[in-house]
């Protein structure tokens, strides 16, 4: 099945993390940066494999459908200055090609995109076909799970989103760290980042299941959100003043919350008001704005999945 929903444009930013065409061989990765859609269509003419053709067709339809929201000139200026800061940050940083095998709406993939952006690390984004036939590269890179995200670094695969985040801290020492330095603070970060996975797991049960199972999922969701709210407290971010590991782990689930709210009949603002405010605060960050899709797109995706699974 081809992807029928083009990636949405996040309202705040103009440059989007639009899927790049994956090229198995390329000469010089070190000057790669997030490309805008025109560059992508230009690059698309270089290859002609079936996946590429599908993606190319999808992108051209995207280009014609998509009319970017009101672009103030200040937005355009902010984005272009970010791009050049990014280039400076990346000079000498990239130690071999980085390719992220990903799927546009995956919150686990988005954790990686946000982390890479926060750390100013250049990489090639490679959109994977998940609902139809998986690419050979994905199957070879992650034979155990056949899942994204997979970060290929000089051809070697790193798998599992939180493992990838840890890896980025370990392998790119001159980039701003996601995890705090203090062992106790690190332990807290690990605990809560793992805990944040529950939002997605329970949320999935909310839209998939009915009856008692649904009621149980709703109960668990309220508990989890309440715990997260308590842990965040009055802090700006989970570790304090700085955006970090737990924030990166949790924020990609935020565009899913409106759907979960509807399926679960609750309000995030009521159940976890501080998390709601934190989500808005995170959304102001360039890395987050560029990586996440609007809730409406996520909701469309859930609706499509329900059809695929034959769920009412």
């Amino acid at each position, binding site marked *: 099945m081809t992807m029928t929903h083009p990636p949405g444009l996040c309202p705040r930013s103009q440059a989007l993390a639009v899927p790049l065409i994956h090229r198995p061989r390329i000469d010089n990765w070190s000057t790669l940066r997030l490309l805008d859609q025109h560059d992508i269509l230009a690059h698309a003419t270089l290859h002609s494999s079936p996946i590429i053709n599908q993606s190319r067709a999808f992108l051209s339809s995207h280009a014609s459908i998509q009319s970017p929201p009101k672009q103030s000139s200040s937005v355009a200026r902010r984005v272009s200055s970010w791009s050049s800061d990014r280039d400076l940050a990346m000079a000498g940083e990239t130690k071999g090609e980085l390719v992220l095998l990903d799927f546009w709406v995956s919150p686990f993939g988005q954790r990686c995109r946000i982390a890479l952006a926060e750390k100013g690390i250049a990489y090639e984004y490679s959109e994977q076909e998940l609902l139809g036939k998986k690419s050979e590269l994905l199957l070879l890179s992650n034979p155990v799970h056949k899942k994204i995200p997979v970060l290929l670094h000089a051809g070697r695969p790193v*798998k*599992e989103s939180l493992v*990838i985040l840890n890896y980025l801290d*370990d392998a790119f020492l001159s980039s701003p760290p996601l995890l705090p330095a203090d062992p*106790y603070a*690190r*332990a807290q970060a690990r*605990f809560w980042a793992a805990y944040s996975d529950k939002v997605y797991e329970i949320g999935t049960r909310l839209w998939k299941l009915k009856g008692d199972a649904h009621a149980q999922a709703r109960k668990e969701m309220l508990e989890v959100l309440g715990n997260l709210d308590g842990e965040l407290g009055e802090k700006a971010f989970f570790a304090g003043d700085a955006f970090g590991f737990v924030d990166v782990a949790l924020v990609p689930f935020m565009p899913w919350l409106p759907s979960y709210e509807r399926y679960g009949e609750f309000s995030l603002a009521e159940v976890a008001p501080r998390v709601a405010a934190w989500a808005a605060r995170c959304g102001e960050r360039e890395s987050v704005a560029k990586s996440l899709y609007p809730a409406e797109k996520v909701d469309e995706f859930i609706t499509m999945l329900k059809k695929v699974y034959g769920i009412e």
Partner: protein
Amino acid sequence: MAGELKLLGTWVSPFVTRAKLALHIKGLSYENVEEDLGNKSELLVSSNPVYKSVPVLIHSGNPICESSVIVQYINDAFAGVGPSFLPADPYERAVTRFWAVYVEDKVVNQWARVFRVKTDEERAEVMHQTLEAVEVLEGGLKECSGGKGAFFGGDSIGYIDILLGGLVSWVKATESLSGIKLIDTTKTPLLAAWMEHFCELHVAKTILQDVNAVVEYAKALQARMADAAVNN
């Protein structure tokens, strides 16, 4: 890093055993507090409000919860003391972390379901999935050890050895109780060798729970669950 260490746990828990293994490997002394999970202490509930479960490591009054987080914390906080649990190389570290997640998600969490599902059919299905996961883990052991030794950490034990090590007495108890070999010499020879070598270590002999005691505990637990099922 000075400061008293206190471990809230139960003797039978494989997750608590992980913490004990880690503390012992680092040569750390600690106060061992045996909790009654039917009557949880105020300290346990206040230290682990999210899960109210064991193990909890309390270091200078600060609680750390979840066994894998505790083991990593012990490695971080006592970095200069004893061996490191993780490889130095970032990529090897990532491979280790990947398989640690696999152990938790596919082996441990599946196996834990055996004790929760109600029908024999469900139990058989869960056991089947657990055994399949163990076979995949055989490949993980090969990848992590890199041919350097019997352990995931190569010729010395590391993070995954500790995570899996906590379960050894339960693996043996399961074989004794049900005849099911979670780690089968013919299907998973590397893991079988791993278990043999692990059990020969001084730390294993000191820390691992007595298998017969675990068997008795499991029998009593099964009986209680059967009673509860009848009475519901």
